[in-house]
């Protein structure tokens, strides 16, 4: 039941976000545009072409991209929190952000053209960077043959710090027009297009199916490793699959949107405060809550200093944190 309500709210939020922007468009123009696109009704006077372009080629792909990235971050944040049994876990815990950031820095600094052979270099490079960083962290924990979950976390932190340091050096040593790089690092949907939406969707679909398949096991993983194993859960195997799936989702999201913080951390906690600790509920609701959150944040980043655009990562923390604090206080006072 709550999923249906959640998805409805998400759809309404998407429509709402599409109807607001730097260029004022009447709500009935938007409705007319949707209706005529869906071929439900032919209007006598066609809608202004530029307005159509703004709605269908600028705003809508961007809003949907924000929704997909929000879902990816929310879902992978929830998964990481479950797998690592750590409420402070966010999707960037084991190095995705630093790895992607380093790849992006290398690409921008090297001055390579961003489009080679019709391939967009930046998303590919940052994707590889993110995955590589996590693989390194995972390898380290494998080599150390440690049984503790904290080894991966610490390895990830170390790799992340190292990658960030390398990025820093590259930025310092390069020609100082770093604005495009910095705005990528802070995250944003300013160049949201349909081909990005289409490119990103398979990763989210695929990853979320895998993760949800093991939702019940995540519940059991909340006990200690030995307990879980004694209940029949193949701890190391499932942990590996879940980490890889969430990293896939996170790396693909980051490669199209930059590094947006707070969504992956706050969405699962918000869901937990309202709906409890069952991961079969937390996982899908984190995705939905993450989506709504990021669509709204992107909307605010677009209109707060119009026509200037603020980085989304700033907005998610600025507006998300007070709301989250309110939720913490409120749920503490609730008599359960």
């Amino acid at each position, binding site marked *: 039941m709550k999923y249906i309500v959640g998805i409805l709210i998400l759809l309404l939020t998407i429509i709402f976000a599409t109807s607001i*922007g*730097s*260029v004022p468009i009447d709500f009935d123009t938007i409705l007319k545009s949707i209706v005529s696109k869906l071929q439900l009704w032919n209007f006598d006077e066609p809608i202004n*072409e*530029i307005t159509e*372009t*703004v709605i269908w*080629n*600028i*705003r809508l792909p961007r809003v949907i991209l924000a929704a997909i990235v929000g879902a990816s971050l929310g879902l992978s944040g929830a998964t990481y929190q479950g797998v690592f049994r750590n409420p402070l876990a966010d999707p960037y815990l084991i190095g995705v952000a630093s790895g992607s950031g380093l790849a992006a820095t290398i690409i921008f600094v090297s001055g390579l053209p*961003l*489009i080679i052979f019709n391939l967009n270099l930046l998303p590919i490079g940052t994707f590889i960077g993110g*995955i590589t960083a996590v693989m390194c962290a995972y390898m380290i924990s494998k080599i150390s043959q440690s049984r503790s979950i904290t080894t991966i976390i610490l390895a990830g932190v170390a790799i992340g710090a190292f990658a960030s340091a390398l990025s820093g050096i590259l930025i*310092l*040593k*390069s*020609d*100082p*027009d770093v*604005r*495009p790089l910095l*705005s*990528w690092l802070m995250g*944003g949907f*300013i*160049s949201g*297009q*349909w*081909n990005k939406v*289409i*490119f*990103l*969707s*398979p*990763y989210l679909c*695929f990853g979320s199916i895998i993760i949800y398949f093991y939702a019940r096991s995540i519940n059991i993983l909340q006990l200690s490793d030995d307990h879980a194993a004694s209940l029949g859960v193949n701890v190391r*195997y499932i942990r*590996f699959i879940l980490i*890889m799936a969430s990293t*896939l989702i996170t790396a693909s999201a980051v490669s199209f949107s930059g590094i947006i913080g707070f969504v992956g951390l706050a969405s699962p906690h918000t869901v937990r405060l309202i709906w409890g600790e069952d991961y079969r509920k937390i996982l899908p609701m984190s995705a939905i809550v993450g989506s709504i959150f990021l669509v709204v944040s992107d909307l605010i980043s*677009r209109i707060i*200093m*119009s*026509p*200037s*655009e603020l980085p989304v990562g700033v907005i998610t923390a600025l507006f998300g944190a007070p709301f989250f604090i309110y939720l913490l206080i409120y749920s503490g006072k609730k008599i359960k």
Partner: protein
Amino acid sequence: MKQFIYIPLIIIILLGCSTKLAEQAQSDTTALPQLKILNQPQPLQPVQLKLQEIPSVNNESKANGKITQTVYPLVIKDRNGEKITFDVAPQRIIAFDAAAVEILFAIGQGSKVIATHSFVSYPLEVSEITKVGDAFSMDIEAIVSLNPDLVYIFYPTFKEELEKVGLKVLLIETIDDDLTKLSDHFRMWGQITDAIDKSENLASDFENRIQLIKQELSQYSSEPSIFQDVGDFWTPGNNTLINEVFNLLKLDNISKSNDGYYQMSPEVIATMNPQYIITNTPDSYINNPAFKNLSVIKSNSFYIPNNDYFSIFGPRFILGIEELANTVYPAIYKKPR
């Protein structure tokens, strides 16, 4: 270890599927016809003007008669109001600024420059000069060991450190608001290095060429709209030096509603439909379905700027201004001189 084979396999399959889907989506936005981008115009020859023909902008120097030698001790005020005293012309200058280096060479004082930072590349002689730092850091030890009598910087981060080791520091932050201050900046260097006549030539040349542009454009009342994209939709808004250039050239900057540099919303670009777009990457507009209605695409009005001219506020800045004027108003510049 077997699991590690699955991962690359899955990723490859996913990449394959997504690329296919994306290709289909991309082919829907039908390829736009091959367009020729406006080529960079030939660099204009500096116009030799007889000073008497153009009304002098700066009346002060005429009123005082000919001043050709600096009177020392000379007191220069930096932008914060602090005073730096020069007892003699400095002979060993470390100029940590590309514009300052170009100015010094232009007024014949290039030999006095003993060091600079590693991103200075003009004029060609600078390849011989010692480099003591890069964009954000300075090698203080190297600077001290070179024994300069003046260190010029344009951002304040290292000022205290340099003064603590006993160096004379002149800090003048980059001019970002008023075009006319640039010629005074040339004159300042002439005063400091006792090269007043050369710097006066440089400054007057700049002012005269600006005045010439103003005269030529006085007959125009329309204001073509323009948008500059310095990368990822970052654009100079109101109160930037580039905006002043636009104002001089009677160009309506669509970004002028906000101050400073900021990221412009693509919706606004698509709706306001600027007649000219200055960018290094016209492809990002041509291949983007969001901008398919832009008139710049149909009329070939992309301008790829010479980055050096527009970002170094020195003697070559006027070339950037003239190139842009030449691009937007080709009718004027066809007149023979």
